[in-house]
């Protein structure tokens, strides 16, 4: 579609079943009670001039442009702050109003630069539009009086400029920061004529302020005061494509605003049901990697990993790959082959990769990066509830009374949802945080956790069991719910277990390190505080008891009746954009799409008939098992799409050994990632901007990904997988991802009603979409659990085998930071590095002092697995005895240190608990230096036009 700004009805929608009737400019209309006159007029097709109003902000009544006349009402009230009442007769355009509005506009314009023709917002400026709307023809005051025209521009933020000379002090930016983002970073400093927008203290610029660069202020600004640098550089967009972000599992939808083939900006789409018009610094701004100079756009091959890469044609690359695949299958058998699907790729792409492995390679050796993040969610929720998914939609949080966040840091990992959660908390919902670190949610502007349980890493189950003990022994369990909805005998068995004295907070406090009274109070609050909702992340799953913790969470929710309605539930915050989808699509080695075990003959027959192949009824290898088998010599070939296992998976040196032992490693990705150091074939991938498909977010919402520009490599990823399939003899002939979705819907009961037509018509759909729920399922388990009766599972606390001791006395836990994403392949190639140029080690002041360390010092971080060096950051965000780092940068390689301990049920790595020692260091370790050297060697490329020169 062409470029049109998003519509703005001026004030927020009101949810009210009661209605009122009014007349506006002679038109009769009915609106929900509580609707503003401004919104009602807009709904009736009118447009009252406005500057300080926006429909994602509360009414403010400051700009005096939206005045109206109302029969029987004195004066000219502001339409944004005046609510419609029954029988009201409103006039929005009268000679008096025209005169008043022009007068106000004159004042605005008298202190505004008259540089419209050279202004970056020219023809896309609300001030300009409003001046035209009110018929401004002259400014009687002239332009020579006191003004702000000489105010300097703040260009410190890498993505947008702040030009105070163009500011009209409407406060929309300040209010957006407060109400939408919840950062409270901006303010109006000064008074009267001296009022100006300020990012914190007068000495601070935007970059050094508390601003998190979510872009809400830029979106709210009605002038060019806050504007994207890209608009200044490229110009006004000319067309718009709505698509879905490829960063975290929130699944924000954006308007990709284009000029030709050039992306001008990504603007959060108000129609997006996951983000409701909000964004974070990654989705909003960090898309420059799509055109980064390090993008690989030509296929490359090499016979062995010590050789330089050789650029070749697609045909040669595919023939080379097919030859190796066929040869390995003939020599070692089908089970020597395997593949890894990506949570960054679309549903259609992951479906094709697992189909290639099952139908083409003839094995179930397919796994996905969810193995290292949310595989315990799959196991735990399927066991207790019957299906592997969160129970709520994001809107549900608006009806929560108590929010329990465990092992998640949503302000960094899922910032757009965190903003909505914080809004609910500011409205009065209670908050319990269970986390070893004092995350931002524990204490941030206008948010204070009612209870913070700073447990020792690795003791989630102990804390949850202690909470369950309180709920059961104090008679707080909702037995009516349990009797009606759950297996009563299993409940009794569980209740007897948790009620034992050895599970009391007083007893388990010694294990988890949390004050027993705090545990008791938190449990009482969750059980009795109204709608209780649990949100969790990788701090739950990435433990040796990850699956047990998920089940312990489900137990708590069932015991208190907090399942099956709005405001409650169990909500895994998925890490990557399509973790949910990748799992749904049959990416695990034991499951076909829709979470049906490969041993299920009925399900298997469906696929066998559709694909005309035999599906192995036995599970295949998981990623760590593939690597073990490679080291043992029985696993020889892997196709990895959109995943960098060398950087993201634990025990880097073992991963490297496994990859090095394989005869054929195919990496299909955007960049020469760390895994590609061990690859023989590199197939260039396409970004989310260059492809069609769907992503499924953490609330099971299936949303369209739309191609906004042509792929730099010439092909979308599903086309590359199809070409590889055809090269090994399969007869696939999909012409569009919608055809793949048709096949998914045909083979997957929970997707039965999903099609591109439905997605176009509805915007998005939340699975299951089937005959019972043709419009999707926002809230699951409403009338009953998917498995029938909810199942309580006894989850005994079993300490991890990773223990601290004299050699390794500290516990390392890892996580992510707001500005970077996963292994950083995308965000490291954007200006986001200004906020996080390197991984650092957070260490408590006491531990730092004991080691003579201060912030900025190089430190050696060593575990039983290996050692690395990085810089220290001394902070009391971590408890004594605990250190924390991120894994966004390959140079620090946090996973050199992590061990291969993993979840008992799923082998999800225990990233969150590693016994380490920290000591002063002079710089990089020998391993890091060797690795850097090996990487340089591995990344040599003989370009097709310079091969001869390089060879010479």
């Amino acid at each position, binding site marked *: 579609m062409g470029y049109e700004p998003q519509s703005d009805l001026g004030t927020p929608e009101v949810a009210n079943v009661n209605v009122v009737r009014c007349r506006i400019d002679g038109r009769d209309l009915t609106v929900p009670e509580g609707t503003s006159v401004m919104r009602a007029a807009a709904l009736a097709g009118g447009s009252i001039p406005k500057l300080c109003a926006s429909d994602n902000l509360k009414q403010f009544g400051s700009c005096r442009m939206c005045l109206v006349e109302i029969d029987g009402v004195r004066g000219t009230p502001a339409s944004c702050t005046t609510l419609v009442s029954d029988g009201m007769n409103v006039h929005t355009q009268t000679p008096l109003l025209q005169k008043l509005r022009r007068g106000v506009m004159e004042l605005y314009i008298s202190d505004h630069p008259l540089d419209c023709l050279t202004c970056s917002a020219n023809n896309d400026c609300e001030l300009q539009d409003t001046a035209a709307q009110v018929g401004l023809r002259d400014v009687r005051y002239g332009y020579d009086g006191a003004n702000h025209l000489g105010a300097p521009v703040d260009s410190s933020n890498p993505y947008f400029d702040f030009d105070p000379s163009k500011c009209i002090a409407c406060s929309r930016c300040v209010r957006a920061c407060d109400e939408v983002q919840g950062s409270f970073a901006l303010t109006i400093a000064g008074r009267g004529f001296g009022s100006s927008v300020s990012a914190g203290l007068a000495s601070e610029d935007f970059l050094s302020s508390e601003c998190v660069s979510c872009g809400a202020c830029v979106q709210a600004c009605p002038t060019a005061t806050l504007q994207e640098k890209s608009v200044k550089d490229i110009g006004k967009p000319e067309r718009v494509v709505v698509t879905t972000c490829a960063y975290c599992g929130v699944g924000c939808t954006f308007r990709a605003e284009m000029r030709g083939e050039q992306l001008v900006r990504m603007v959060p789409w108000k129609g997006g049901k996951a983000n409701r018009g909000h964004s974070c610094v990654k989705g909003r701004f960090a898309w420059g990697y799509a055109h980064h100079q390090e993008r690989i756009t030509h296929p490359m091959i090499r016979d062995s990993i010590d050789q330089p890469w050789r650029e070749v044609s697609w045909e040669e690359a595919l023939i080379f790959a097919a030859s190796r695949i066929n040869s390995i299958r003939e020599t070692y058998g089908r089970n020597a082959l395997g593949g890894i699907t990506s949570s960054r790729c679309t549903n259609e792409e992951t479906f094709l990769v697992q189909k290639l492995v099952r139908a083409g390679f003839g094995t179930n050796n397919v796994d996905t990066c969810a193995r290292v993040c949310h595989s315990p969610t799959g196991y735990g929720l399927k066991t207790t509830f019957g299906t592997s998914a969160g129970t709520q939609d994001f809107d549900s949080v608006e009806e929560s009374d108590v929010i329990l966040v465990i092992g998640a840091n949503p302000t960094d990992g899922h910032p757009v949802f965190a903003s909505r959660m914080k809004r609910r908390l500011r409205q009065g919902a209670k908050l319990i945080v269970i986390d070893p670190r004092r995350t931002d949610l524990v204490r941030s502007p206008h948010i204070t956790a009612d209870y913070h349980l700073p447990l020792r890493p690795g003791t989630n189950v102990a804390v949850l069991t202690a909470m369950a003990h309180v709920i059961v022994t104090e008679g707080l369990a909702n037995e009516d719910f349990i009797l009606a909805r759950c297996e009563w005998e299993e409940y009794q068995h569980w209740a007897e277990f948790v009620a034992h004295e050895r599970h009391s907070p007083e007893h388990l406090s010694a294990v988890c390190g949390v004050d027993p009274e705090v545990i008791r109070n938190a449990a009482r609050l969750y059980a009795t505080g109204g709608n209780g909702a649990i949100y969790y992340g990788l701090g739950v799953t990435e433990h*040796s008891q990850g699956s047990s913790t998920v089940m312990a969470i489900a137990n708590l929710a069932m015991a208190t009746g907090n399942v099956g309605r709005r405001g409650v539930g169990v909500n895994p915050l998925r890490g990557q954009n399509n973790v949910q989808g990748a799992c749904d699509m049959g990416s695990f*080695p034991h499951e076909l799409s829709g979470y049906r075990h490969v041993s299920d003959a009925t399900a298997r027959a469906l696929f066998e008939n559709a694909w005309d192949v035999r599906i192995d009824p036995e*599970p295949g290898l998981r990623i760590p*098992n593939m690597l*073990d088998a490679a*080291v043992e010599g029985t696993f020889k070939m892997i196709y990895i799409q959109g995943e960098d296992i060398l950087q993201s998976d634990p025990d880097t040196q073992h991963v490297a050994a496994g990859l090095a032992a394989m005869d054929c490693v195919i990496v299909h990705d955007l960049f020469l990632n760390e895994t590609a150091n061990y690859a023989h074939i590199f197939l260039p991938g396409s970004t989310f901007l260059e492809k069609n498909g769907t992503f499924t977010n953490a609330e099971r919402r299936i949303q369209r990904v739309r191609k906004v520009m042509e792929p730099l490599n010439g092909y979308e990823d599903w086309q590359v997988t199809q070409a590889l399939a055809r090269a090994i003899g399969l007869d696939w002939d999909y012409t569009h991802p919608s055809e793949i979705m048709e096949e998914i819907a045909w083979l997957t009961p929970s997707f039965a009603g999903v099609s591109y037509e439905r997605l176009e018509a509805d915007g998005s759909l939340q699975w299951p979409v089937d005959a019972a729920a043709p419009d999707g399922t926002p809230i699951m388990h409403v009338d009953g659990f998917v498995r029938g009766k909810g199942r309580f599972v*006894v989850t*005994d606390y079993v300490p991890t085998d990773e223990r601290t001791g004299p050699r390794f006395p500290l516990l390392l836990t890892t996580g992510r930071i707001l500005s970077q994403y996963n292994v950083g392949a995308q965000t490291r190639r954007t200006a986001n590095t200004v906020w996080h140029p390197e991984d650092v080690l957070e260490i408590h002041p006491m531990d730092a002092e004991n080691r003579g360390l201060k912030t900025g010092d190089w430190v050696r971080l060593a575990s039983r697995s290996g050692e690395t060096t990085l810089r220290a950051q001394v902070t009391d965000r971590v408890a004594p005895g605990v250190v924390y780092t991120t894994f966004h940068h390959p140079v620090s390689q946090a996973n050199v240190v992590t061990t291969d301990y993993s979840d*008992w049920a*799923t082998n999800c790595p225990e990233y969150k608990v590693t016994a380490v020692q920290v000591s002063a260091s002079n710089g990089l370790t020998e391993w890091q230096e060797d690795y850097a050297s090996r990487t340089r060697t591995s990344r040599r490329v003989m370009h097709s036009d310079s091969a001869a020169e390089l060879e010479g």
Partner: protein
Amino acid sequence: MSAHGIERLVYMANQIARHLVLERDPVSAVADHIIAFWTPAMRDQLIKHGATGLDLIAAKALEQAHRHDVNLISLARKDQFLERCHEC
């Protein structure tokens, strides 16, 4: 741990057993888990290794999984036999 190969399989089996010990029938629970999530080659490797290093529940579960595999193999052979007969 840094154990790989058979050591890792022994560790995994014991770890599963430790976590399912409170199930009503822990041996069956462990056997079912191994059958559901391990490849036949992994199961076979552990069966060939024997009970050395395995906890009691894990060892019994392994026996149960082995019986399951043997039954499957004989069923498969039976199917193949019937298929051949049918072809004849």
